[in-house]
């Protein structure tokens, strides 16, 4: 099976990269022209300069950057990401809470866009140049160029404002205590953001699957299979499906970065309380600890997608499995 050695080296490479990304995020955020002290105590405080200096010393704001980074990293390993200025609560707790909300949204749209996109792509490939194929192709080529947040706004206008079928936003009815929120409420509020994110992420899968289907259907080995007397169903099952399914799945995993971006935008449009809305809130309030925590989580998220994609390539592609083509 898959070589253990290359799996380990792949993981090591990703861990080093993750470390570098956290350094990058740390440097970017700490060099912002925002004084963490001012953003914490507010601009209208009557604190004397001496007292400010004392707090700065206590927080280690005057230490050199590398030292601050390692202090942060040390706390990170103890599960302490600091205190959020915006929400006045530990960052780890907020991220945990928000990420659960976002991950539900992302999993739903990811799975739906993958499955529906694949089926539609196969169908379009099979009936190339039919009316259905042309309509789907035009729609999704157009959607690929449409900004996610604009699409969200349009969907919101049509389904929530004009038709009134769905709530305007949020994850639960306003004014309802958290304990009273039913699963039905949650699903009801999830539909529109999930729908937006699904159709945004579906374009790539459809167009890829469609093109791949057409390419394979014209290949010599399919022609040979046909001359051997295989039926359409057999050809689809034995040759086409096998050759498309795995790259399509890998493509889905490799798209985690775009999925995250789309999620952040969709959440902001629908004011869905997830990581995306937390990111904008954090950056607007110069909430350095929360912003750092979110960057780290998003980096881990993208990495796990890429790692799975890389492993899948290795597991399913016999050439890479044998270690010949992997140069």
């Amino acid at each position, binding site marked *: 099976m898959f070589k253990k050695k290359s799996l380990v080296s792949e993981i090591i490479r990703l861990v080093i990269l993750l470390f570098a*990304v956290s350094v990058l995020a740390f440097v970017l955020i700490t060099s912002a022209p925002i004084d963490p002290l001012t953003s914490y105590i507010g601009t209208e405080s009557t604190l004397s300069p001496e007292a400010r200096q004392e707090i700065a010393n206590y927080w280690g704001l005057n230490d050199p950057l590398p030292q601050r980074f390692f202090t942060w990293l040390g706390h990170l390993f103890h599960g302490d990401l600091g205190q959020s200025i915006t929400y006045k609560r530990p960052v780890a707790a907020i991220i945990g809470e928000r990420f659960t909300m976002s991950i539900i949204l992302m999993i739903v749209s990811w799975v739906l866009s993958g499955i529906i996109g694949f089926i539609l792509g196969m169908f379009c490939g099979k009936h190339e140049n039919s009316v259905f194929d042309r309509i789907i192709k035009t729609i999704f080529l157009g959607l690929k160029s449409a900004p996610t947040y604009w699409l969200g706004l349009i969907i919101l206008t049509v389904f929530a404002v004009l038709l009134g079928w769905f709530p305007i936003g949020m994850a639960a009815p306003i004014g309802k205590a958290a304990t009273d929120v039913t699963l039905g409420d949650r699903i009801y509020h999830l539909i529109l953001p999930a729908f937006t994110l699904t159709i945004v992420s579906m374009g790539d899968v459809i167009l890829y699957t469609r093109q791949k289907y057409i390419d394979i259907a014209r290949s010599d080995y399919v022609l040979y299979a046909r001359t051997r007397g295989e039926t359409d169903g057999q050809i689809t099952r034995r040759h086409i499906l096998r050759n498309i399914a795995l790259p399509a799945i890998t493509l889905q995993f490799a798209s985690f970065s775009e999925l995250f971006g789309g999620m952040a935008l969709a959440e902001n449009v629908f004011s869905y309380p997830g990581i995306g809305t937390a990111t904008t809130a954090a950056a607007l309030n110069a909430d350095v600890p929360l912003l750092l925590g979110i960057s780290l989580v998003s980096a881990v998220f993208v990495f796990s997608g890429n790692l799975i994609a890389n492993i899948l390539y290795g597991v399913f592609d016999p050439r890479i499995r044998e270690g010949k083509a992997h140069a």
Partner: protein
Amino acid sequence: MHKYHKKSRILNKRVALLITMIIAAVYLVGIFIWGCCIGEDSYAVNFGNKFLPPSAEHWFGTDNLGRDMFFRSIKGLSLSMVIGVISVAISSVIAIVMGILSAVFGGWVDKVVNWAVDLCMGLPHLVLLILISFMLGKGVFGITIAAAVTHWPSMTRMIRQEVLQVRNSQYVQAAYKMGRSRWQVAIKHIIPHILPVYFIGVTLLFPHCIMHESAVTFLGFGLPREMPAIGVILAEAMTHIVTGKWWLAVFPGIMLLIAVIFFDLIGEGLKNLLNPHTGNE
């Protein structure tokens, strides 16, 4: 788009493609120049005209301050294009330098470049844009630099791949064997081969930049509120959507969508024309 397509046409594919590309280019350049010429009084505040739906006088309607949405959209789009041009120019230069360096020198240079590409792709693009723009204090400067320094990775990979391919081709190997220096080979063979790829890459990078700029602006980390950028317009539209002011969101978004599709169209068209397999159909 493919060769099995049997249909009699008056124009052959090449001419038809050229004509669409020219129309797209004229449209985009037109919007750009028009936007630059529009003065502030075309979309000045006028409280007498609040929330007018689209009409012959105000094609896209007016907003909560009575500003004409049509002119604001045009102005916003041309602003986006300016930022797009600057950031694409910077990004593509980074990409071509890094791509050629990593392919020509190989070894540790290649490793470093690949690593930088991975690093840049390690964070979700949107998060990276927000962080850089945030660090530079948002505004025009922040978003332009953020867009400029984050759009090179995919193009770097593409150029690296192309250079590697030319370098390993027989005619280049033959040129080396005949005693041509690296420089001579680079100027005579590699650069002419890379240029078309480069131009296609640049055109296709453009819509990406514009989309990202508007998304970051929409979230409030890009262009400032008082500028008529598409992102700002749509962010404002969001606050009025509950009251049914649909035109505030629909038209500016469609303008952006058309611009992006046209850029893609020109890029794909160039790709088809410059590729000898599809160029002569």
